[in-house]
């Protein structure tokens, strides 16, 4: 039936991501947000939630899969993705970083370099429980400057945490400029590989591909996996893409109108 096909389409990850981006722009009119980094991570967050079978009803299940947003300043994207997935209580969020107790938030973050260690602890607990639940940690690329990330990377590989997946939002920009100018990360995939991780480089805006990659059975299963997800800061609003000045701001009414008009409703489909 046509109606069913339409429901299926609106439920597709790419369509959900497009609605989350629109919601994000609407939020940015009434409060300052980390817009560029939020726009870049929307597709990743949609894909992880989809791959993990997230539903609001399951969000309190002790045996749920876990997502830790380690790049906490992108919380605005998380709010919008969760709201589009039906999580109540997120229409008018105020906190600029994830807070414990917020629906759908697994851990308060914002001080960078904490999430992968927390994720490793969640993964250790799953293994001790004999559960097959998985843990995903979404990291910023600038965040990889923090030494604690590499403590956790070494630990997760040593402990053979095959139930842990890290996704790096590789948008190549941090606050003051290109990552390669501030503190070079490349060769990034080789770094993770040398730490003992299974590495996949993926298009971080191709929701379908991300979901496939996250749900594909991993072999060998005793290595943690990292997806280096290539993204564009500001993704979805062409005039914001790759522009550092859209890192953190509140949109004027006019900027909002222009952004909504420019918003590609199906950003991943053509790629």
């Amino acid at each position, binding site marked *: 039936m046509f109606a069913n096909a339409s429901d299926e389409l609106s439920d597709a990850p790419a369509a959900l991501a497009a609605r989350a981006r629109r919601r994000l722009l609407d939020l940015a009119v009434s409060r300052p947000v980390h817009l560029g980094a939020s726009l870049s991570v929307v597709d990743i967050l949609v894909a992880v939630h989809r791959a993990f079978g997230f539903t609001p009803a399951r969000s309190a299940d002790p045996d749920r899969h876990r997502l830790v947003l380690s790049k906490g300043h992108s919380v605005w994207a998380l709010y919008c993705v969760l709201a589009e997935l039906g999580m109540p209580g997120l229409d008018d969020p105020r906190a600029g970083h994830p807070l414990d107790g917020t629906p759908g938030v697994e851990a308060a973050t914002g*001080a960078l370099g904490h999430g992968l260690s927390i994720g*490793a*602890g969640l993964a250790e607990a799953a293994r001790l429980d004999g559960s097959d639940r998985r843990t995903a940690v979404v990291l910023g690329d600038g965040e990889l400057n923090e030494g604690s990330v590499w403590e956790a990377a070494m630990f997760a590989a040593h402990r053979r945490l095959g139930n842990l997946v890290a996704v790096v939002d590789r948008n190549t920009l941090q606050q003051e400029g290109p990552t390669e100018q501030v503190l070079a990360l490349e060769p990034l995939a080789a770094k993770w590989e040398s730490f003992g991780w299974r590495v996949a480089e993926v298009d971080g805006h191709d929701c379908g591909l991300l979901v496939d990659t996250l749900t594909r059975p991993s072999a060998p299963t005793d290595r943690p996996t990292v997806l280096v997800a290539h993204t564009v800061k500001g993704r979805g609003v062409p005039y914001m893409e790759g522009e550092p000045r859209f890192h953190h701001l509140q949109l004027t009414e006019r900027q909002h109108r222009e952004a909504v008009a420019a918003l590609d409703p199906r950003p991943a489909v053509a790629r």
Partner: protein
Amino acid sequence: MTAPAARRPAYAPMRPAVAQVLGEAADADPALVVLGADGYGLATQVRDRHPRRYIDVGIAEANLVGVASGLARSGRPVVVGTMAPFLVRRAAEQIRNDVCNPGLNVTFLGVGGGVSYGTLGPTHHVPEDLGFFSGLPNTRVFCPTDVVDAAWAVREALAWPGPAYVRLGAREDRVVHPADREFRADGLLLAEPGEALAVATGVGVPVALDAAGLLAGHGVRLGVLALPVVKPFPAERVRELATGLRAVAVVEEHLDSTGITQHTARALVGRWQGAFLPHAVDDSYPPLGDRAELLDHFGITAEAVAACLLASLGRRSEAR
């Protein structure tokens, strides 16, 4: 009769006793997990009997505490045991944000608090550990004196469903308490005050007891309130005991600005008048010395406490 030999102070390390407490706790609670950072002296029994529930993260304190947070967020009680200076300073942000702010059930055991690592030098001193943890809401803070109240403090910390810190000695500490001592969270009055009171914690307790012995020879009765629990601080009890006394001394192996010196002063300010005599680490980095030399440097000795009290009470000091 062998009474004289029994009067010689005994010394014992806290670690084996704490290892036994943790082993028993792990036996009783199948969810409990113990984490260490390339040092398992506290976890010997857990490691032997429950090897899956002891995790060594290597020399990486920030990750140590982050992993503890993840385990605790999954509903497991967690014990983190490592060297206090590195726990407090390297993992400060993880302790605050990832464990104490959400009020998770993690017990931190800091080996070598204060200046007890002595000649290992200033990198290994942490006279700010109790103040750091006391500044974190939801968190209980313990500073035992010897092997007896160390075991009690760890049991109490494990029983508290939120975050807790227990400062443990680096090496051997003088045994002050009989094995069957019953402890109270608001302190133990080990000597009744006459003219003055000493509020003491950790190694400050034997120092205060010795000072009381010295002062007895001068006809001065120094009360000794031993505090194995630093937070919550028993302000009301300190005020009650100080009432009518001419002097209050504080004895602690900690910065005076954030330790029980500050808590005692805050309990008394505006409500009590008399001589206030802190014997604590002041606002300076310690010189090179073993623990006893460092305590002497900061005036944390029975002789210094007794001399200051005699002077403040207008008695001629013959204590030295």
